[in-house]
């Protein structure tokens, strides 16, 4: 095809061939970029090991789904759509941009294949992509400047927000789109003026618009626009590239890696140190994260990858009720620390300082309920729970533990329950049932049962929660199950102990329970406590253990096979409006969403509605286990907030399937002053109530 304008590869300005710039700009920029990336990799090299190279198939799948298909983006519709447009625009335009860089050196360069019909399709596509990106950028700009979504705001304590950075980058992108289109629009306009066959420009695109606008311009104007837009594009393109690793737009580069390496398993906590097995833990010099370099390389990749989109914090219950924790700042503060101590120019700043109390505060780290809402929401696979647990491990080792947690931890060590109550009273809740039936206590060798009911501490000892234990036992009995409990041989499951960073205590509890369960000879474990379910399934990870089931799964199965039959609700019950509150450790951490709903729906006459925040967006009740003993400063209890959500949805009965949710929500109802108007009931209690004997 003939051209009417001199291309950048052939142009001279003041006698200097511009091709020199076409060659120099990429060389200098790529060298600089490589240098910056090398510097950015330094902290990853110094960091602790992480195991992220297994199961490549699953990882590639995650990349295709979460990265390429932008799976989580539409959860926030406006921002999600804008991002998807820019993301796909970038993908499409990456070929064109590379082509342009080479065209500046070699005029006739075309990627192989693009000189065929494929090229026709591609060039039209990229014209529309550039235009769509431009429009998306304008919308994003308006949104940032005028609408200012609340989740981008910076609380005062965290310093300046990143609006300027966002706007600068939007500006870069807009310029890239405009110059690319102008470069081509000018060339085509000149072709038309010269009566040559014009290159194709897709209608209603920016390039097409420029072509029309320039139709009557002087040739010299077109020529200079052609050259200038090329070099502005070239410079901005490489400036943008080198700018990416300096801030939150690093995610443009790192997100694909971050998603590839993201966690594959749910519900578990990573080991104290990869490559060190449990028996060797005693030999470790230090536990958890104290220095910045105690993070794993994936943690630091997470810090780099955070785009400051605020979705984690927007969903974080701790942040919502005003606790001093906002997950995005865990990432941003980590990133700022990395940038500051591993600068691009100048020496690395070596320090053995404990980061606790410096970049992170104790209250911040204790504020987390490990509900997992942040990780569920992050569109690029950033993790928080493991980091927070690792920082707690560091604090535990330093003895830096809130006073109110010390007593329960010590009681767990001595008595296997956080209350410090006697082991022999662990099964006292069952006395009330003794007139109905006897529950086997699998304490001695020789006594065995098919099914082991793992009760866990709070359900065993807390007066209110004991009714959940009694309901569970009634259900198992009524379904004709041969079951028993461990009695004083059962210790706390340790789910919370592990998540509070007391790893060695967790190990002791775990080993005790594994031994007791194995000795019981049971072929299946059932529990009504999602925390116990989670830790046995995902953390104990012992091949010696029989499979574990949550009572909601058991109920679903036994209702559908007819072993449990439910009465329909009476008139009063039919007036009630039920809603199901997903416990974090059943839902998000174990993907059990449908079983409990199916159980409620199996009760004839039950009117069930959904709260806005349900299933994987469920709002934590305030947390279980040790969270009962520790509450940081907050404006409102999570349980109260949750009760209000249920009320807004129009519910009068909150059904849950976790003893902790039950207590926290019950307290929430009282504090909110909604007694008599709202009630909460455990799924087991509800079923036991409706069961046909």
């Amino acid at each position, binding site marked *: 095809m003939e051209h009417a304008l001199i291309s950048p590869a052939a142009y001279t300005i003041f006698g200097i061939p511009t091709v020199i710039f076409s060659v120099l700009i990429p060389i200098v920029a790529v060298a600089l970029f490589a240098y910056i990336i090398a510097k950015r990799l330094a902290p990853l090299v110094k960091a602790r090991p992480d195991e992220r190279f297994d199961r490549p198939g699953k990882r590639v799948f995650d990349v295709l789904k979460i990265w390429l298909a932008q799976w989580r983006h539409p959860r926030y519709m406006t921002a999600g759509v804008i991002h998807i447009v820019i993301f796909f625009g970038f993908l499409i335009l990456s070929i064109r941009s590379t082509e342009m860089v080479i065209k500046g050196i070699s005029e006739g360069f075309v990627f192989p294949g693009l000189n065929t019909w494929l090229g026709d399709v591609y060039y039209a596509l990229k014209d529309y992509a550039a235009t769509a990106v431009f429009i998306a950028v304008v919308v994003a700009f308006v949104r940032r400047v005028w609408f200012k979504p609340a989740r981008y705001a910076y609380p005062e304590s965290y310093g300046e927000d990143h609006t300027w950075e966002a706007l600068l980058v939007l500006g870069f992108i807009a310029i890239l789109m405009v110059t690319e289109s102008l470069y081509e629009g000018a060339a085509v306009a000149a072709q038309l003026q010269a009566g040559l066959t014009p290159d194709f420009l897709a209608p209603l695109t920016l390039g097409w618009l420029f072509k029309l606008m320039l139709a009557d311009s002087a040739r010299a104007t077109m020529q200079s626009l052609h050259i200038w837009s090329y070099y502005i594009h070239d410079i901005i393109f490489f400036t943008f590239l080198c700018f990416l690793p300096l801030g939150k737009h690093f995610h443009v580069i790192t997100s694909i890696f971050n998603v590839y390496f993201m966690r594959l398993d749910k519900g578990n906590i990573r080991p104290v140190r990869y490559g060190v097995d449990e028996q060797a833990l005693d030999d470790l010099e230090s536990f958890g994260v104290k220095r910045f370099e105690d993070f794993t390389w994936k943690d630091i990749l997470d810090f780099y990858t955070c785009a400051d989109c605020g979705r984690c914090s927007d969903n974080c219950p701790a942040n919502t009720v005003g606790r001093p924790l906002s997950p995005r700042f865990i990432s941003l503060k980590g990133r700022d620390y990395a940038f500051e101590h591993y600068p691009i120019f100048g020496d690395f700043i070596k320090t053995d300082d404990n980061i606790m109390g410096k970049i992170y505060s104790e209250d911040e780290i204790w504020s987390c309920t490990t509900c997992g809402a942040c990780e569920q929401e992050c569109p690029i696979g950033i993790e928080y729970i493991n980091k927070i647990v690792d920082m707690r491990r560091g604090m535990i080792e330093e003895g830096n533990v809130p*006073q*109110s947690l010390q007593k329960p931890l010590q009681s767990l060590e001595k008595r296997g329950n956080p209350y410090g109550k006697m082991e022999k009273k662990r099964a006292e809740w069952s006395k009330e049932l003794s007139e109905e039936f006897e529950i086997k206590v699998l304490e001695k060798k020789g006594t065995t049962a098919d099914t082991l009911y793992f009760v866990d501490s709070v359900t065993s000892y807390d*007066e209110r929660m004991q009714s959940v234990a009694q309901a569970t036992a009634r259900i198992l009995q009524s379904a004709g199950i041969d079951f028993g409990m461990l009695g004083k041989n059962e210790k706390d499951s340790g789910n919370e102990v592990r998540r509070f960073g007391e790893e060695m205590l967790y190990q002791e509890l775990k080993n005790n329970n594994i031994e007791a369960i194995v000795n019981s000879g049971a072929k299946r474990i059932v529990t009504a406590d999602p925390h116990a379910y989670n830790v046995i399934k995902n953390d104990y990870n012992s091949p010696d253990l029989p499979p574990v089931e949550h009572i909601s799964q058991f109920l679903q199965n036994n209702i559908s096979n007819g072993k449990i039959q439910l009465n329909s609700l009476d008139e009063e019950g039919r007036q009630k409006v039920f809603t199901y509150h997903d416990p974090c450790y059943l839902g998000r951490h174990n993907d059990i969403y449908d079983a409990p709903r199916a159980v409620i729906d199996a009760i004839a006459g039950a009117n069930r509605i959904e709260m806005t925040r349900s299933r994987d967006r469920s709002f934590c009740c305030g947390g279980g286990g040790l969270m009962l*003993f520790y*509450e940081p400063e907050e404006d409102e*209890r999570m349980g109260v907030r949750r009760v209000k959500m249920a009320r807004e949805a129009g519910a009068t009965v909150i059904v849950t399937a976790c003893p902790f949710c039950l207590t926290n929500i019950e307290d929430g109802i*009282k*504090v909110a002053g909604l*007694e008599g108007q709202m009630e909460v009931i455990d799924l087991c209690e509800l079923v036991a109530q409706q069961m046909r004997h």
Partner: protein
Amino acid sequence: MAQIFAYILHSDGVLDDSARELLAAAKKIDAGAEVTAIVTGKGIDDACSKAAESYKSVWKIDNDALSYPNAEVVRKALLSLLPADGILLLPHDTFGMDLGPGLSVKLDSAFAADVVDIEGVEGNTLKTIRQEFTGQVNTHVHCDISAGAVINIRPGVFQAAEGQAGEVVDKSGELGDLSAKRKFIEVQEAEAGEVDITKSDVLVSIGRGIEDEDNLEMAFELAEAMGADVSCSRPIVDAKWLEKARQVGTSGKTVKPKVYMAMGISGSFQHMGGVKGNPFIVAVNKNPKAPIFQVADVGVEADILEFIPEITEKIKEL
């Protein structure tokens, strides 16, 4: 029978409540004893004559060095005056705890602390009753008084006794060297809180049973409904949930309300030591064996976390 002495605490010429309680304790050791009161300080004539209203004999020990009751100085003064086999009674308060143990060593006499009752003397054995495990169990403790004894008496448990009036004997001239390695500097008053619970007529007092800082809110709601103020026991202050100025007890404020609502308070003597003026005491506690039920007028066995919101609501409805 050995001579019995009682150390009298006083300030501004007013005797501490313990002054006549010690007399009662002494009478339980020896009903016929002529008990000698010991008053130390600077310019203590008023206190001495007050003491002489109930004690047969009052030793006045007046010295500049004793203007503040520094236990080390008081010990030196007493050592130069007390007979070898005497029995000295002290209140088991922050002063008695400071003085008693060391004094008993220096006197080479027996020491019993926090005595809540005395069963009498048999030969050289003084039979006392004490409590252990914060009042959960009682013990009989026998004390060999052949070489004298220092006995610290729990304040507030002996019914103040009346005694015959007596005379003041000035012992100030018989003191030896009173120099000390511990020097009193000053008393820093506890920071005044938002409220002065010592002036409240009705107190809603919160103990360990509140379990969590956040639950305090319900206590304030109840107090508001009743027109009362909120006070608390020591663990609440140790946990920094409420300010020190709200703490009732020997290490906190002494209160004299008309009605005292002990909510989730077990009722240790250190706490009840701060409740004076014989108020109407209501105790709510989930442990039926809590010692508070021994001193309360009315008791309710309940979990305050459930009880408080319910009663608050009912009172609001009135």
